């Protein structure tokens, strides 16, 4: 068993946005599955917890949803990024990169000057 981490809401939201950017419109199950796969099963999420997160993003207008038909011809609700969602994702990505960059410098082994 690999070490598994809990997922906190903000990060989950970010992952959802990124997933939708990468894969285009997708249903809740697909998103949950994809997040788990991307983390190479290091992240164990209860799929149920993805829905409040999706709802919150939708309420805030970062994603939109509509009913569609899946590959297997099954009715499913599809979520897609809105313009606001793309913008936020870009911002968050930027922020994340800056943060990790700074932290990386701190954790890097000290170099002799």
């Amino acid at each position, binding site marked *: 068993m690999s070490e598994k981490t809990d997922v906190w809401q903000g990060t989950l939201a970010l992952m959802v946005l990124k997933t939708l950017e990468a894969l285009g419109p997708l*249903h*809740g*199950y*697909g998103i949950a*599955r994809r997040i788990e796969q991307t983390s190479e099963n290091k992240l164990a999420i*209860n*799929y*149920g*917890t993805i*829905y*409040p997160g999706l*709802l*919150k993003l*939708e*309420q*805030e*207008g*970062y994603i939109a949803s509509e009913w569609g038909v*899946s590959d*297997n011809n*099954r*009715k*499913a*609700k599809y979520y897609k990024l809105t313009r*606001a969602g793309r913008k*936020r994702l870009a911002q968050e990505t930027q922020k994340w990169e800056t943060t990790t960059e700074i932290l990386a410098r701190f954790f890097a082994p000290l170099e002799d000057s």
Partner: protein
Amino acid sequence: MNVRQIRGWMARCFGMLNRGRREREFAEELESHLAMHIEDNLRAGMSPEEARRRALIKLGGVTLAKELRREQGGLPTLETFWQDLRFGLRMLRKNPGFSSIAIATLALGIGANTAIFTLLDKVLLRPLPVEQPQRLVVIAKDVSGAPVSFSYPMFAELRARSEPLSGLAAYVQQPFSLSDGSQTERLTGQIVSGNYFAVLGVRPALGRFFSPDEDRTPGTHPVVVISHGLWQRRFGADPALLGKTVGLNAYRYTVVGVAPREFNGTMRGTVSDVYVPIMMQVQAQPGRNSKLDDRGSGWLYLFGRLNPAASRAQAQAALSVVTSEAKKAFPGATDPATVFLLDGSRGFTGRVSDLTLPLQLLMGAVGFVLLIACANVANLLLARGAARRKELAIRLAIGASRLRVVRQLLTESLIMTALGGGAGLFVAVWLTRLLLGFQEQTNSVPRTLDGSLDGRVLVFTLGLSLLTGVLFGLAPALAVSKPYFGAALKESAPLLGTGRRWLGLRNLLVVTQVALSLVVLIGAGLCVQSLRRLQAIDPGLEPAKVLTASFDLSLSGYNEARGRQFFAQLSERVAKLPGVEAVSLARGVAFSAFSWIRSATIEGYQPQPNERLAFNFNSISPNYFQTLGAPLVRGREFTTQDGMGAPRAVIVNEAAAQRYWPGEDAVGKRLKYGSLDQFAEVVGVVRNTREKGLTADPRPTIYVPLQQQYAGDLTLHVRTAMEATTMLAALRREVQALDPALPVYNLMTLAEQKNGSLYAERMAAALLTLFGLLALLLASIGLYGVLSYAVTERTCEMGIRLALGAQPRDVLKLVVGQGLRLTLVGLLLGLAVAAALTRWLEKLLFGVSATDPLTFAVIALLLTAVAFVACWAPARRAALVDPLVALRQE
């Protein structure tokens, strides 16, 4: 919070609407989610059961998923509150008896508090409606705030030389007779310095206030500012009034402005309707000399505004320098040598100072009533909580958090207090009307009350009810929600253990109630006793038989000759009315605020070095003492012979006679008063009257004949055995027949006048009695409730006792004894508290000690008797328990 978050919250708000459709949609979404997952699992080679099981586990449960989403979809806090609210209302409806008692109790407590607070706020607390009232200072004689008046020259000097003040203004109250067209009415107004409004920082509702020019030269600028109330009432809020003229004290003034609606002048307790500049003093005070150059007459009250940088002490020192210099330069001037600056944010409070103590007292009393009411509600909540123990235990057992249960119980008590607060507003309105009733019977008390409840008071009430709800709902809620479901779920739990503890709390509440109501009742008892003694004082005249009607001819343009003629005609006409026994005129009205004090010299009396011979004065026409029913002890009354050309005559009272001619006959002795150059002879001695205050020792008084000392402001005194209202109407008709435009006031009996002088005492006695009885009622409800509950809890025990041979009488004794024990503890506590507290009452009491043992004993007995009655019903119920039924219950 950014735009997106706001959008999110709004979506959640809307999410509470058509929730059913949203939830169905989500159920569908979940279904498709599971189907896809199961399909995937099947593809991965699982058996159908396994595939489904795994999918469900991974989802974390359908119900939980739905629950999580529901929380995100709406506003759970609000929704829970809404649920609690509906549940609470349902509970209230299910127990109408409980609910109505609790709500009524709170309504009475909160209503009484609101009404008294309204009064207190209006009369005493509220600052003047001016800019930064906290920067205002009033100039007083001493630290107690005793008012002191200044001459105009002194004021002018102070105004010019008071650097720490950004402004110093002066005013004096003045009655005005306003004539406009045919109607004439008597108003109260103020003569004010030109900077009066500027110092206050008031802006006109219409037009302007006084200009510097209008404050410079005497008599040249007849301008007036009127109150908003007068503008609306008399002039129909007509904006075209500006620039028009109105008659004031028989002189024409141009209206230049209207004061703001909420502004009533600087004299607390009165409403000023007109303001005229100080330079118009001679015209505004007909018959008086100009006082603008006179250092010998102090008539102006001063207030100022502190500079932002200055302190009150600095300003006081600066002003005192000026006054002490002036005192040295003009030793004969009446102005004080030192002054004190006091907080002026509430204006001049001299007229309402009599009310301060009674109002504070009443506030204390209603505070106690509210505490008792709250104790009652807490008691009722505890009792009901006990009855609901099982329900709550089940809730706790199946996973409700304690917080959730407490929240629900709190919501219920909040509903109750909110309803109580709402009903309390009605009680407050009613009680305020009652208070206004007291006010209308007198002319010597605040006129600023109008019976309206304002926003501040509303907030006060609301806050009070919420506080009550939280405070007195929390304790029972915490007590009841303790997780001891094991015990509570058992059928026979109530007998021992936890029940006892609640009972302890409830007993404590009842004891407190008894103690508090005893305190209020004793206060009431003392005030009633004191009032009875006050009313039993013989004032030395017969107030019930005398009617009065006042008018001020000098304000209506009469000169002395016309005035004398008017008075002669009026007296003659009134004397002819059927039922009139005697008629007389006088300047002063007994028991009114009228005060006329002058000095006099007595022939042959050598005053002590520092002794100033000051007398109360009154100008009276013939038959005055006969009219009032005050017998002369020596000599005669004035007659028509004591006219202008005749030798000067005076009548003195016994107090003067004994003081200055002890052991001698005062009749025939001589004295000089005012600016007379000849001596006046004492022609009669009259019994002392207590018309200047029932409790004050009669002061030496000199009566002078009206014929020899004309005044335009007089009061007709009529002695009659007839019913007052008919006679008063007849009096008004007679005055109007002679001069329809002359305003008449003080149309009342002297008895009413006397009652008016006891306003504060009567209000205190009546309201304390009302609140005392209310407290008693509430406390007995509390006692009854506790005993009823105890009896219900102990039904089984009673059954056993009866089954084992106890007589119903024994059970009766047991229960009544329990109730009386609680009462007794409360009584002892209450007596101690009362003894400690009633000394605050001392100043208000007359002829009764604040710890009057009789009052204490009688009230304690009364309370015991009422408590006994309250115990009787539950005790009887206990005594009539059928042992078989009782035992089968368990």
